[in-house]
């Protein structure tokens, strides 16, 4: 049996290598994804760059200089401050008047000018205005209207301030799915071509049985998808501290798309139908990967989609270094989907082949 399956695989490889379209866009896709990944910033900018000028500048710098998320720069003149804001170097510039401290000390109202770029959002305008007002209360010796709890009580979950996971790291599952999608279309196209040209019947008049044919398609599809996606993950340095977890997730993902390819290939009659069927099958695969880029937990309906487990396993293993225990539920869900989709794909293809 192994000899027959291997012979069919060799025939398929030769046939696929002749299809220049898929070979071309698979390589192109791989290169583009790697370039895109490395072109994205590797850090998260979570700092508000604030410029200050005037007599309150040093006081503000003293009070907030060490505050995480705020980068303060003191300017010698109002003009320099205004220029820095206009040039986009600062989120805002606070210009204290010369009489700021004496005016506040006497309890009178002082006017402070805050320069912002015209496209600054309201949340930042409100926050900077509030910051300046709070400084005035500090100068005047007014106490806080509330009691602030200790910081370790208010931060929930691991504190990642200054150590955020960049967007590019969350993009990895989506890139993997894009590549798997191309492999799925390639295999689906090969299967449809065999059915259309009836070469499958030619194969089956030899000692090869339908199960050999299906086994060859499954092994080839899974192996090709797995090798390509593993190369992509290596090129974007996804193999962190949990390479075996990541490899398992990729293997399951490859198996899942192979099942989908069997389904699309046995149902679609021509290139366009395969393309549309593949897109219809791949869109639900892409949703969890897209959702992983957003902060927060995914909606319940996203959690039941086939690629959710695989996506979570990839993100957690590559970005957070998750081990087997943490990734196990996600891998098991993906495995369950693999079995279901693959069984359906095999059933459809077997039925199609038998009707030829």
């Amino acid at each position, binding site marked *: 049996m192994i000899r027959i399956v291997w012979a069919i695989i060799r025939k398929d490889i030769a046939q696929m290598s002749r299809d220049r379209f898929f070979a071309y866009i698979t390589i192109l896709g791989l290169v583009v994804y790697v370039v895109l990944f490395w072109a994205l910033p590797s850090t998260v900018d*979570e700092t508000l760059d604030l410029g200050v000028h005037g007599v309150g500048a040093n006081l503000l710098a003293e009070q907030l200089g060490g505050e995480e998320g*705020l980068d303060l720069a003191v300017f010698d003149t109002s003009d320099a401050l205004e220029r820095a804001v206009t040039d986009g170097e600062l989120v805002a510039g606070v210009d204290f008047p010369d009489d700021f401290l004496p005016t506040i000390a006497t309890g009178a109202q002082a006017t402070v000018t805050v320069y912002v770029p*015209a*496209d600054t*959002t309201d949340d930042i305008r409100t926050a900077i205005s509030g910051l300046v007002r709070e400084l005035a*209360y500090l100068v*005047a010796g007014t106490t806080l*209207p509330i009691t602030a709890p200790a910081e370790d009580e208010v931060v*929930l979950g691991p504190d990642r301030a200054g150590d955020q996971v960049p967007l590019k790291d969350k993009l990895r599952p989506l890139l993997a799915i894009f590549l798997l999608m191309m492999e799925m279309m390639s295999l689906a196209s090969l299967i449809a071509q065999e059915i259309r040209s009836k070469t499958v019947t030619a194969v089956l008049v030899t000692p090869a049985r339908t199960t050999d044919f299906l086994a060859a398609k499954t092994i080839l599809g899974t192996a090709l998808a797995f090798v390509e996606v593993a190369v992509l993950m290596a090129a974007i340095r996804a193999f962190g501290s949990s390479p075996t977890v990541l490899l398992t997730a990729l293997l399951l993902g490859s198996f899942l798309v192979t099942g989908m390819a069997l389904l699309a290939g046995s149902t679609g009659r021509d290139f*366009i139908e395969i393309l549309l069927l593949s897109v219809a099958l791949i869109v639900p695969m892409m949703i969890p990967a897209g959702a992983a880029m957003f902060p927060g937990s995914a909606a319940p309906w996203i959690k039941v989609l086939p690629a959710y487990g695989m996506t979570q396993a990839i993100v957690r293993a590559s970005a957070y270094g998750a081990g087997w225990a943490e990734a196990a539920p996600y891998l098991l869900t993906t495995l369950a989907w693999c079995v279901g989709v693959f069984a359906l794909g095999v059933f459809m293809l077997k039925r199609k082949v038998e009707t030829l």
Partner: protein
Amino acid sequence: MRILALFRREIQVGPRSPMLLWAVLVPVLLTVLVRSVFGSLFQPQPRLAVVDEGSSVLTEQLLQLDDIEVTVLASADELREKVEANDFDAGLVLQSGFDAAVESGDQPELHLYISGESLASNRIILEITALDLIRGLTDDNPLVNVKVVSLGDEGYDLVTRLLPMLMIYAVVIGGAFIPAMSLVQEREAQTIDAVLATPATMDEVLMAKGLFGFVLAILTGVFTLFLNSAWGVHPWAMLAALAVAGVMMAEFGLILGSVASDSTMLFTLLKSAGLLIVFPVIFPLFPSLPQWIAWLGPTYYFLDPVFKIAIEGAGLADVWLPLSAGALICVALVPIVRILGRRLAARLAVTT
């Protein structure tokens, strides 16, 4: 008359192609994608959850804030759970009697929870905004009057700058891809041979397919603009820009369809030629790039007018120059389409 008969045939056969579904679905999907992903992923708003246990006036004030996403939750436990999962950047629990305690100077404990995964900048914004509003409970006359001065041009937000990208996909699929695919599929199924066996000429076949692409490009273009609330205030100017887009895309489609020998080759060609068609949309996204490079792309000459009419309220008098250049490109493409059409007819004659 024969062109009209062939055009009627395109209308009858065209909707059976699944690609037509794409032409309609792609603008909708891209619009949803652009508005949800680019609106919230690359320009995220700070997210605050509030639990109000005692009808605080602060809740109403927080809900009225622009650019901060405020959600009122039912219980403090739910708030802590969601903040920990980073569904919110921060959560504020306003215990019963909070406002009165602040007003009487009792300094009640502030139950503000921060998500460990929230950005440091968002933490500062939410903490200061909350504190500022709490101060407002007791102090109607703050010590400082803050004068906010806006500097420079406002520019366009990312979602607006993505409009040319949405437009190009809308007109490329309807205007170029469908006539190209139709031509290739007719060759694969050899139905074009049957058509050419009648008195119809290749020029007339191409004209009918081009006309079908032109109409589709206009329809998908109008659909996309309405979907994005970007029709503008000068409908005739917009229709003129869409007409240039429709003609240019239909011509590109006919050129690609004449050159490609099968569907696979057409996709390969589209992937390569697609860069030439699409690259001008990159420049509005990155205003710091030298914008003149976009002039080298033929699609710039309808994308720029569409953008100006839709977003800046420009009329025909403002965009006639690029539109005229676009129309000239359309005229220049006519002989190329005819030459390739004749070569195709000659090839078909040889094979049949």
